[in-house]
């Protein structure tokens, strides 16, 4: 397999290290993400995936190293980031549509444009019917779709997803992953998708980074050149799956 065609670099991670006191979590992590790329990061639970995304979005400071977005130090105030969290993160006092609008409101998107994007996203993800419901009136999967919609509605340059479908059952996940890919294609964002599920990663990503156990660094990089929609029983899919599984056998 040859390397990817040369693409503009969106995110560059250089020598990223994070310690919590004496606990070394991330140890010299290096990689880059191309503009518009869909990158999956797989690693065992507790290896520092969430920590890495928190560093990337400046929720916590790095111990060493740099994260550059478009060549400058990452900062949610200047870069157009969006983050879909592992746990539910919709605001319980707002309706579904108000929740989807929330990111745009913070970003200062003008009302007319907000309304337009809201309608189009609600249509894509099929939430139009529950637009006026409150988060506790909808299912866990719908709530996660609200979070994904809220993220895409801001037209993020960089979308960070932390095991967004980890809590949901398998059947629903495939459906939501298809929906995610649809949004990604239609709205064109750079996506970093974190998961500990290998199949999920191969299904959605153009490229997969495999992390080591703690202290964590990048162990391998795998390009997934399969046509879409992908199939789990496809020979090539199974082949890549075996490749990744071998890499992580000693987790």
């Amino acid at each position, binding site marked *: 397999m040859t390397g990817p065609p040369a693409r503009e670099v969106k995110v560059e991670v250089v020598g990223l290290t994070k310690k919590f006191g004496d606990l070394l979590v991330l140890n010299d992590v290096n990689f880059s993400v191309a503009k518009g790329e869909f990158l999956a990061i797989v690693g065992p639970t507790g290896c520092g995936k969430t920590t890495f995304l928190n560093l990337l979005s400046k929720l916590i400071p790095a111990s060493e190293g740099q994260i550059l977005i478009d060549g400058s130090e990452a900062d949610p*105030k200047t870069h157009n980031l969006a983050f879909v969290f592992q746990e539910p*993160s919709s605001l319980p006092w707002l*309706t579904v549509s108000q929740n989807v609008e929330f990111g745009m409101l913070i970003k200062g998107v003008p009302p007319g444009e907000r309304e337009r994007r809201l309608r189009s996203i609600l249509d894509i993800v099929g939430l139009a019917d529950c637009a006026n419901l409150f988060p506790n009136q909808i299912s866990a999967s719908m709530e996660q779709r609200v979070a994904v919609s809220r993220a895409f509605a*801001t037209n993020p340059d960089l979308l960070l997803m932390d095991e967004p479908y980890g809590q949901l059952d398998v059947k629903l996940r495939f459906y939501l992953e298809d929906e995610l890919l649809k949004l990604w294609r239609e709205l064109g964002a750079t996506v970093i998708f974190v998961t500990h599920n290998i199949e999920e990663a191969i299904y959605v990503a153009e490229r997969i980074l495999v992390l080591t156990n703690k202290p964590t660094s990048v162990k391998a990089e795998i390009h997934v050149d399969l046509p879409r929609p992908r199939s789990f029983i496809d020979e090539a899919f199974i082949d890549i799956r075996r490749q990744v599984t071998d890499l992580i056998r000693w987790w």
Partner: protein
Amino acid sequence: MNPDTRLKDPLSLRVTPWISFIGFFVVWQLLIDTGIVPRILLASPAEVGQLFIDKLTNPDPDGAVLLTHTMVSLLEAVLGYVLSLVIGIPLGLLMGWFVVAEGLARPPFEMIRPIPPVAWIPLAIFWFGIGLTGKVFIIWACGVVPCVINAYTGVRMTSPTLIQMARTYGASDWQIFTKICVPSALPMVFGGLQIALALAWTTLVAAELIAANEGLGYLITMGRRLLRPDMIVLGMIMVGLTGWIIGNIIDRIERRLTAGLERGGAAT
């Protein structure tokens, strides 16, 4: 709110409260009529009812009609209460989110907090006399404490995930405060309003018992001085009734403002 899981018999559910309600007054009346409790110690419900009707129009012997007493007490309570909300809630909210606000406001607050509200009464009379201002001050001093504590706690209990979520969209500290912390603190704030109300009303009556020339507490004191148990009981009933009505109004406002939370079933 836990649902009542007891077996329900609709008839007894509807009837028993009335039996006990009416029974209460019947027993009370009988106790007086039979002389088990002497008239000098307690008035009968019939006498209190009569006095109630009489006091609607007759200012004697305490100097004002019932409505005047009630309105005076209400005005003092509402003014003091509103002042404690207006100052206590924003202060508590700000203390919950902004470290500087907490650093500045916490020490004086912690010093004042353990003082029981009624202990302010002598000083308040000293400073402001027995009129409106003194009462408003006392009620403010006791109402402001639960307002601050609950607003503060409400903000502190905001889900960190929601705060991080807003941060990743680039929200400023002020935006996170107004759009995340304040709405999520609302149920706690309303809990504080109820506590403050109960406190304010009790303290007001205590203040009026000690120093006043109008108000429901004054009506009670006059009843004691004039050896008129019917006046005392009427005053007590009016205090209870008025407090109950204000409590219900607050409840209704709360339900409207936190409609989203209630509808989602997340009410705490």
